[in-house]
């Protein structure tokens, strides 16, 4: 992730807009989202970095771990001063992979799957599989 992207392109932002309806160019990188994100410490990219990569058109963001750890808690969205629904942007980035049929969770490989309340499994299946 240290290599700078040499070609800036609007393609990724366009795809994200098509799925989420969110205009990532409204973000001016204030960082409130990352400050409030409960999972930020475990992410490889902070939420504001994720959206910056979308602004630059860097498709490596689709391979980041951050978008898959997002818990859909909406903390970023309620704090964004530009009213960007960052949760929807994260979902759009996930869907770009999921809609190709590449799933990030194999339900059959979860240990002790029967111990979890069904709400946890259903939510995980919704967000991490197509």
């Amino acid at each position, binding site marked *: 992730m240290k290599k700078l992207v040499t070609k800036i392109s609007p393609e990724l932002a366009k795809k994200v807009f098509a799925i989420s309806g969110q205009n990532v160019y409204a973000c001016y990188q204030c960082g409130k989202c990352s400050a409030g994100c409960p999972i930020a410490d475990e992410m490889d990219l902070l939420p504001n970095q994720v959206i910056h990569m979308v602004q630059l058109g860097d498709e490596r963001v689709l391979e980041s771990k951050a978008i898959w750890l997002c818990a859909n808690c909406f903390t970023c969205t309620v704090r964004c001063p530009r009213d960007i629904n960052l949760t929807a942007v994260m979902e759009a980035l996930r869907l770009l992979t999921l809609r190709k049929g590449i799933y990030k969770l194999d339900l059959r490989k979860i240990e002790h799957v*029967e111990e979890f309340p*069904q709400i946890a*499994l259903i939510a995980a*299946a*919704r967000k991490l599989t197509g």
Partner: protein
Amino acid sequence: MTTSVTVEKKPKTKMVKIYIMGREYLVPEGLTILKAMEYAGYRLIRGVGCRAGFCGACSTVYRLKGDYRLYTALACQTTVQDGMYLVQLPFVPAKKPTYDIEKLTPDLSSVLKYFPEITRCVQCNTCTKVCPQEIQVMDAIQAILRGDLATAAHLTFDCIACGICSMRCPAEIVHYHVFQLVRRLYGKYIAKPSKHLRERIKEIEEGKFREELDRLVMAGVEEWKKLYAAREIEP
């Protein structure tokens, strides 16, 4: 390039044009898909079974004239229609899981252990729409997700495991295997044990019917024929 089957000496029989695996055939109206395929000369060794709508072997996919939709049905229970374009399926190759029913508990966790993908159900209801037995498949899956195995067992009593629902499911659920596990759990752990069954088993073990059975075995073909002809037939 079409092939026609010649009509027999019954000119009054109305014929309909159907397409089997892409080839055109004229078959008498009123035949089931299965009989129509045999009329056309096919000898079926897969995708055929009891011919009575009970075994689920004869799943067929077809479309109708002037309609873009794909329909599914059991070949032995559905009559041909003019313009029907059909394909017969040998079977649905879903994997059967192995489990020891003695070691399972009659609740949702046992089902999730073997079929966690039922949590992916989006309730699109496609399964219910294609079921040839008119089972409320989606409701059964949802009942299982709620932990209500008894309702699911009752709803799926008529399931013949034809596999059509599983082929169309966007969540890749194999419904009939799930239902089989649920019915087994229900029958073994939840359903009330049948008093009459237990009593009858006891009687058999005590030898109540031994003499009668021995007599029957020794009776011989002529006696059996007489007994068979005179048997009680329930209305």
